[in-house]
Structure formats: C-alpha cells, structure tokens
C-alpha cells in the first residue's frame, strides 16, 4: 500500500506522544502555532501523571492512550523512551496513524546489535501497519504554513517556496532558520533521520510533485539505493531546480581495484558526476546551498553567461571581475552602442566604462537614481550582456543608510524598478565590510524587494553561475 505522504505532511490532526517538562515540552511548543490554527487539532498523549498538568496548562488536551484520541490522526511525533518505542508504534498501527515521525534515537546508528534489532522491529510494525514512518532519530516535519516546526525558533504563517530534505536534524533546522534570514523560506522540510521506511527518493518524489515547492534543496551524507536515488533525482531535476549539499566528502582511502579508472573513481567524484548528470546542482555548505537557492528564486532565469558588472571603485571593479570569471562566467566588451552612449555622460575621472562600469564618480556616492537607472537601461539593452551584478558599496554607504534610511529606500526603488522591467538576472552584492550590523538590516530590506543579494562577489558569482548552468542544462545547451 503506498503511503499517503500528502496527508502525513499536510495534517489536520496531530498528536505528540511523550512531551515532557524536562525538555520544556519542546514538541508541543514547536507545534503550538499548528494548534492555534482554525480546523487543526493538536493533542498530547502522555501517561505520566506528573507531566500532564504542565501539558494541560499549555492548553493542549492530553490523553493517556493513543486509542482515546478522537477521530483520525494524520501525523504523530513520538518522543518516547527507546524502550517503549515499539509499543507506541504498535499503538500507532492500531490507530491507523497516517504518518509517524520518531524523534527517539539510539537505534541502528549506535551500531549495537540489540538497538539494531529494535529498529528492525519498528520497521516491521510500521510496514505491517502501513505507516509512513519518518526517522527514527529525526526532527520530523517542518511545514511553515501549518506551523509544524522542527524548532520553536522557526518561522510560521505564510508558506515558503523551498522544499528541504535533511539527513541531519541540525542542518534541517538551520536551513529553515538561516534561510529565512536570506529570504529563503521553507514550504516543506523533512529531517529524515535513519530513514528506515521513507527515504530520500520518497521525499524527492513528493517535493517534485508539490505545487508550493519551487526549488528543492537537500543535505545528505549517504545513499542507500543508488539507482533509485538517481531515478528520483533525475525526475525531480527535470521538473524544478534541485540543490544537493553532500556532507562527508573525505574519501575513506582508495578502493581495492585492478584498474586505473577504479583508483580514480572516489566516492566524491562519482557523486558529483551523478548530480551533474541528473541536471541537479551541487552545493558545499549551508551558506552555499542558501545562496544558490536564492539565485534560483530571485534572479531571472537565464542561459547566457555574459555578465555586465557594476562597481563603485577601481579596486572593486577588478575583483568583481576576478570573482565572476573565476566562477566560469564571461565579462565581455559591451556593444558599440553602449560605449557611444556611455561616452556621452560617463564621468571617466577616477572611473571607467569598459566592463565593469566603475561608476562611483558618475552616479555619485549618494547614488543618483536617474543616472543609475540610465546605466541599468544601457546594460539591459546591450546584446553582449546576459546578466547584471552590482556592488552596493556598503563600506561607503551603510552609515549613511543608517543615519538617513530614506537614502537606502531611494536606491532600493531604483534596483526594484530595474528588476521589474529587466529580463536579465540581477544580483546585488552587499559586503559586511566594517559595518556588519548595519548591512545586516540593509540586506533584509534588499531582500524584501525581491532582489537576490549576496555577501561577497564570490558568493554572488558562484550562485549565479550554478543557476545559469541549471537553466542551460534544462534548455539542452550544455
């Protein structure tokens, strides 16, 4: 019987089994926004009489048996001692709970024989009961819209656009938390733990089909069924961008092999090849994953590699070029028409209008909106340019933005107006410089205008080049 993942991951009735004071009723707290939603029911199951008053004080109805919970249960989070996990799982099977996430750990991951035997028992009970089992040893579901969270710090309310699959609870939580700081919000995230029933391909298939999910990201350390993983990855990547961050890349020594090829085919080399072959995108850290997702979500899709770059000073013009060329993109000469127009007004004292446009002296450090718009329009019209990236000169300007927030508003209006009418991808670079606190606030305001903004030239270039590579693959160009 196929699992009804859609029902399990978009539940109407949720039960937390084993919530307790010692962890601050963590799971009930994590799910509290869900309990407050109209039409959603959050219940607790706890047999310990010492714990029940605390649970009821949170306004959650407690039952001493899962069987007593009224109606059908779509999703249950089990945070029970390992010794009773199989018994509670049996209760879930009897109650015909659709999806169960098992926070409880101490199973096969310990490497101990009896713990592994217990995991096998869980597998059997859940399989026989037709339960969509998430975990064990996991942080379960994060459904932002429904307010079902992996951590009480994660946001809730509107649904996001990014699906996440995490083989680590920490990285799953952090993707939600850190992503949100960068305008990357989760639709559905699943911390998969030991993945004894539902595994990466199941979740990939689900997120590929989920209309709310525009981009999929994942953190994985290993794959159980290689061919099935490849199949699901290919399918998902043919439908929407999939960003894969693989942990554990150091190879455990060369394999025993009789061939030259075998000695070179490290686990990492083969895995990278699979990601590429599937048309998915490889990332290398949490920040890198978020950067690439950001580029995919907020920069217009493009298959062209030729960048028009804008910087405020000569030094930045040089290194922004280094960064984009280093990421495999081109920084070409602009068209003659562009040079003719630029020549008519560009202030070349202390500046230059080759490519990059070294524009500090032209737009002025207050940032003339009219002149900046004119530069954007020139690059937009230029047939030699496929995408645009711009340094926001936070080192000079952030203090002014802080003292006079309207000055940033004016700049953001100009950027947003450009993005609105432009067909080319646009990336803004807002370096923390010596004004990290101000830049942090400025970044949020840039993001709020729907602009892809990055903390360094390298990060902007790396993210944009992979987004472009993805669109080229989809278009059959590379």
């Amino acid at each position, binding site marked *: 019987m196929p699992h009804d993942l859609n029902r399990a991951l978009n539940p109407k009735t949720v039960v937390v089994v084993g919530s307790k004071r010692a962890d601050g009723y963590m799971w009930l707290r994590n799910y509290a926004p869900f309990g407050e939603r109209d039409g959603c029911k959050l219940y607790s199951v706890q047999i310990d009489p010492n714990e029940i008053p605390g649970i009821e004080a949170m306004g959650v109805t407690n039952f001493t048996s899962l069987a007593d919970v009224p109606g059908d249960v779509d999703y249950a989070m089990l945070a029970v001692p390992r010794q009773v996990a199989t018994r509670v799982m049996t209760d879930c099977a009897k109650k015909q709970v659709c999806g169960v996430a098992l926070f409880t750990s101490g199973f096969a991951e310990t490497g101990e024989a009896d713990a592994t035997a217990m995991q096998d028992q869980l597998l059997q009970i859940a399989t026989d009961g037709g339960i969509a089992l998430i975990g064990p040893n996991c942080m379960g579901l994060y459904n932002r819209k429904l307010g079902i969270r992996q951590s009480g710090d994660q946001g809730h309310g509107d649904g996001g656009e990014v699906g996440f699959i995490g083989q680590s609870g920490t990285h799953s939580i952090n993707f939600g938390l850190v992503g949100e700081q960068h305008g990357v919000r989760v639709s559905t995230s699943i911390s998969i733990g030991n993945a004894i029933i539902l595994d990466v391909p199941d979740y990939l298939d689900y997120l590929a089909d989920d209309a709310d999910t525009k981009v999929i990201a994942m953190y994985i350390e290993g*794959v159980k069924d*290689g*061919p099935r993983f*490849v199949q699901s990855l290919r399918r998902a990547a043919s439908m929407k961008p999939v960003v894969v961050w693989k942990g554990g890349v150091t190879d455990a020594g060369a394999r025993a*092999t*009789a*061939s*030259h*090829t*075998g000695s*070179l*085919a490290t*686990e990492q*080399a*083969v895995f*990278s*090849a*699979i990601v*590429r*072959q599937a048309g998915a995108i490889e990332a290398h850290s949490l920040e890198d994953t978020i950067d690439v997702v950001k580029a995919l979500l907020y920069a217009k899709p493009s298959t062209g590699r030729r960048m028009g770059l804008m910087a405020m000073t000569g030094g930045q013009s040089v290194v922004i070029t280094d960064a984009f060329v280093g990421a495999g993109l081109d920084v070409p000469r602009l068209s003659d028409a562009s040079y003719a127009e630029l020549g008519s007004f560009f202030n070349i004292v202390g500046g230059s209008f080759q490519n990059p446009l070294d524009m500090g002296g032209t737009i002025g450090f207050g940032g003339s909106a009219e002149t900046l718009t004119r530069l954007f329009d020139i690059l937009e019209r230029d047939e030699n340019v496929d995408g645009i990236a711009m340094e926001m000169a936070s080192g000079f300007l952030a203090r002014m933005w802080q003292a006079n927030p309207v000055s940033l508003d004016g700049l953001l209006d100009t950027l947003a107006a450009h993005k609105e009418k432009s067909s080319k991808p646009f990336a803004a670079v807002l370096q923390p410089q010596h004004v990290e606190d101000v830049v942090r606030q400025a970044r949020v305001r840039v993001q709020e205008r729907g602009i892809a903004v990055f903390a360094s030239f390298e990060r902007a270039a790396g993210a944009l080049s992979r987004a472009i590579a993805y669109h080229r693959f989809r278009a*059959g160009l*590379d």
Partner: protein
Amino acid sequence: MGNAIIEAARKDGRTILSEIEAKQLLEQAGVPVSPARLATTKDDAVKMANELGYPIVLKIVSPQITHKSDVGGVALGLTSAEDVGAAFERVVANAKKAEPGATIEGVAVQRMEKQGTEVIVGMTTDAQFGPVMMFGLGGVMVEILKDVAFRVVPLNERDARQMIHEIKGYPVLEGFRGSDPADIAKLEALLLKVSSFIEANPDVAELDLNPVFAYKDGAIAVDARVVLKN
C-alpha cells in the same frame, strides 16, 4: 556478443582478460581499437602483419611474463615481412632464455599506431551506483592531476559531450601550440560505444583504454584492459 571470450576466461578461472581477448571483445562491440592477433608461428605472424598493415609491433604472450620489454619480449617499428619474421624468432628466443619455465602462448601481433593526443577512457563498478565511466587526458594529466570526468552508465550524447568538455585540460584537445585538434565527435562516439558495450556485458567489472590516441580525424584505443566480476 563477446560471450565466447568471457566464457573462455571464466572456464580458466580468470577475471583478467589478456590484451588480445580484451581487444577482440571491444572490436566486436564496435569500439575502435588497434587490433591485436595471437600468432603461434612465424608464418602466422607474417600473415597477420600483412593483414594489419605496417609498421607492426610484436609482444610476447605468456602468463608468467608481465614485464615483457625487460626480457626482450617486445619488438617495435617493424616495417616489412622479413623484419616481422626475424623479430618473431628473436622475441620467442629472448623470452625462453629469460624465463626458461614460462609457458609461451605465442606472440601478439599489432599495428603500431601513429602517436596522437593521449586520452584515457575507463569504467569501474561503483558499489552504490553501478558502472561508472571515466574520461581524461593521458599521461601526467591523469596520473598526477587526476583531471578526469565521470558519468554513470548508460551515457547519452550530452553526457559524453560534457565529460570531454568538463576536464581542465580540454584546451589540449582543441589543439595546443600548433598541434592538431582532436576529433571530439569521434571521442564522443567512442565513449557511447563503450557505454553500450558495458550495458551489454554486465560481467565486466572494470575497463581501461589507456591510452586512446585522438587524431584530427578519428580516435583509436591502443591498449585495453578488461577485468571481469568475481
């Protein structure tokens, strides 16, 4: 296809095919290889050399002799039937003298291909993902820089094209400092042929075509090594 060769090796309890067997297997599958034939007599060797075309290389074939040139078991650049005949006798005599107990199966007769840009094409079986193919430049580029690209079998045309373009040394294939550019289309076709060969022969665990000579108008595997699954 090629099963007779694999079955013969299986019957002998061998997982490593001889160069002659490996090349025959690949030749049958349509992979461009420099053919090698086993001659057991001087007359055989001359006849085969005439068929293959000159210049010719002879190599002693003996399970006990792995370092053939160390025992004088290799003769290069033979340009006539007379040379081949004389070299056959010399190579066999040298081998017998160096390794008196060795079983001499014969002498491999192959064409001496003209030098091209050296590339390596290979396959290994990944425990997780099954057969994986590799492409790289030969020599130092693969030995030290490990400048290679991988794809899982089966390859499609895009995969073959990407593998070749992906290596850092790709400009070498485009023609470097006046050297001929390599025939990329033929290299792509070779990769696809090898992919089909592997799909059709799941018994093959590992494969090295090293080197493959790439020319401006073609590509040919000069040496081949095939390892069967245990």
